[in-house]
């Protein structure tokens, strides 16, 4: 079989969009696509597993927010985005960094602070960048206006592109998100606001953080769509539809992707004091993006269990290698502490170190 048709399980919910104008409920998947999505989701999951281990062995410092559970969102969306579409997200950035073109090695290397990392070890877990990927931002909500600004530049330059600005269910209450909605609508910006609703902002459930948990309607005057973020094909279709809508000049959209995070908020949060283990298990058993998709591939005979197993071990091997390489890569030379403060330092500028006798020439 080289192609199969699937119907989405949880229908889209639409806001200010008529059902007939929404995305279609069926999706055709080719074998090639299927294997690609599977590989991508699995790579992210296993990469995060490696990250988790690195954190346990104290090779990763500070915060480390895993994307585990949410893979369907970035993989499904990426399947419908154009290469030059821009993406910006928060600190839970590893999956998106990968989908925007960074290698597992560059990501793990950044996590352990090495010079081969996506940000040469200067950014760490929360601050990764790439081609048309604007981070990796640590302040809740701040990336949303930034994303609208990128969209402003795209529109200014008449590019055929849009910007995806992602934020969490907790971030969705931030005032600047509403300021960005308002301006994006007024200026008709090609911006796709995406709320990755994983049920919790740190230890706070959506019901305790948000007076309305229908995040896809919270753009008020901006049309919105809810999509099952655990169904990579639904996400792909919704994104394709959203892309068409936005590229046709109709202005911004709000998309809510219903998803779940299996790990704690960050590595230091056990993630079990504010939810039950059985809740987590239930999602894993019934909604997991990867197992669900795997079943579909197998039952539709687009792939065999054996093939997928081989892919898995191939990924494992690659990640193992990347991991090993990352750990043996060096950190930047210490002088680089004083570079990149300015891209055009004033001539002869000296940057002060920790005392009056330690200064360095500022280099871009």
């Amino acid at each position, binding site marked *: 079989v080289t192609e199969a048709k699937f119907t989405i399980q949880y229908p889209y919910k639409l806001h200010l969009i008529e059902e007939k104008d929404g995305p279609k409920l069926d999706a055709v998947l080719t074998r090639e696509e299927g294997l690609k999505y599977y590989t991508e989701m699995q790579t992210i999951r296993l990469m995060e597993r490696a990250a988790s281990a690195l954190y346990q062995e104290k090779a990763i410092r500070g915060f480390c927010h895993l994307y585990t559970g949410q893979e369907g969102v970035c993989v499904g969306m990426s399947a419908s985005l154009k290469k030059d579409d821009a993406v910006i997200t928060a600190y839970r950035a590893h999956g998106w960094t990968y989908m925007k073109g960074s290698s597992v090695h560059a990501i793990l290397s950044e996590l352990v602070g090495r010079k081969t990392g996506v940000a040469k070890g*200067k950014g760490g877990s929360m601050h990764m960048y790439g081609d048309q990927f604007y981070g990796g931002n640590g*302040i*809740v909500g701040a990336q949303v206006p930034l994303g609208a600004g990128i969209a402003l530049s795209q529109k200014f330059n008449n590019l055929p592109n849009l910007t995806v600005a992602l934020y969490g269910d*907790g971030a969705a*209450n931030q005032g600047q998100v509403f300021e960005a909605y308002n301006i994006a609508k007024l200026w008709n910006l090609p911006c796709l606001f995406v709320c990755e609703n994983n049920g919790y902002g740190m230890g706070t459930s959506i019901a305790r953080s948000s007076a309305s948990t229908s995040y896809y309607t919270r753009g008020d005057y901006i049309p919105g769509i809810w999509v099952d973020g655990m169904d990579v094909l639904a996400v792909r279709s919704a994104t394709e539809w959203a892309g068409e809508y936005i590229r046709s000049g109709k202005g911004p959209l709000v998309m809510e992707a219903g998803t779940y995070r299996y790990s704690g908020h960050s590595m230091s949060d056990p993630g079990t004091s*504010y939810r039950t283990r059985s809740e987590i298990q239930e999602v894993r058993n019934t909604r997991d993006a990867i197992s669900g998709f795997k079943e579909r591939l197998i039952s539709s005979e687009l792939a065999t269990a054996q093939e997928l197993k081989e892919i898995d071990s191939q990924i494992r091997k690659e990640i193992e290698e990347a991991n090993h390489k990352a750990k043996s890569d060096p950190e930047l030379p*210490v002088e680089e*502490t004083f570079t990149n403060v300015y891209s055009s330092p004033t001539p002869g500028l000296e940057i002060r170190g920790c*005392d*009056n006798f330690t200064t360095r020439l500022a280099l871009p």
Partner: protein
Amino acid sequence: QKITVRSALTRALNEELARDEKVILLGEEVANYDGAYKVSQGLLEKYTEKRIIDTPITEMGFAGIAVGAAMHGLRPICEFMTFNFSMQAIDQVINSAAKTYYMSAGSVKVPIVFRGPNGAAAGVAAQHSQCFAAWYAHCPGLKVISPYSAEDCKGLLKSAIRDDDPVIFLENELMYNVTFDTPDECLKEDYLIPIGKGKIEREGNHITLVAHSKAVSLCLDAAEELKEIGIEAEVINLRTIRPMDSEMIIKSVKKTNHLVTVEQGWPQFGVGAEICAKISESEAFDYLDAPVVRVTGADVPMPYAKSLEEAALPRVMNVVNSVKKTLNIEQSSAAGRN
């Protein structure tokens, strides 16, 4: 008694919540989660959700709400998960909290404490490592506290909560787990440390080291090292940044004739700069046998990688070398190295 900084803070909160039912604690994860850094452990259970209140992640909104509640007579303790996030709310802190008593010619009081970890933690990179001591201390209407020890935390947080003006209380994440041998007296319920007074953590005759927060420990370590070469450093723990205890610094400088300031924040327009200026403008200036120099964080956003982060934060070496320079003692070969 050995207690951690965290425990000192929790005790202070607990005692003041018990003492005055107008005191409330609000912020992200302060209730159900016991605080992101477990500083409010057990308080929800004891004081109920009426007084220990989880907020959404909307700093400008909840800080404004806390300030409004203070104007109406509550005594809120508003926790920022870290002070980095206080930038989202800083207009409410400065324009609404710090200035209202003055604008209203004394008719509207704003008894509020803004607290949370400030400055660099470990490996949290540029957006999560900023020190706000100098920014807040720039602004009249605010009192700004930056405690070091468990004793400081207990005595000063209690004073802050009882104070009728807006107080910024700058904790340090890396200190939460640090244990201090604390006199029983300091653990009593009526033990308060006055706002605006520093503490001499170690006496010495040769040079004065002034620091706040975690940098005090740097000074104490440096003092130990200096002792070995016969230098007795006096270490002043500022405790309060605004109003600053300049008298204590001046008195010490008159004795030691030398001064080095030490802080973890950025060098320019920082706490050390103000101390330099205060000394310059005081009678202590004439007692200086060498100019004041500063030890600070490096003038860069905080890098993530370990060795770079180390280079961006002051170490004992920086203090020792600065002291040697000031005292005109030959530098070890380590001098000037990063």
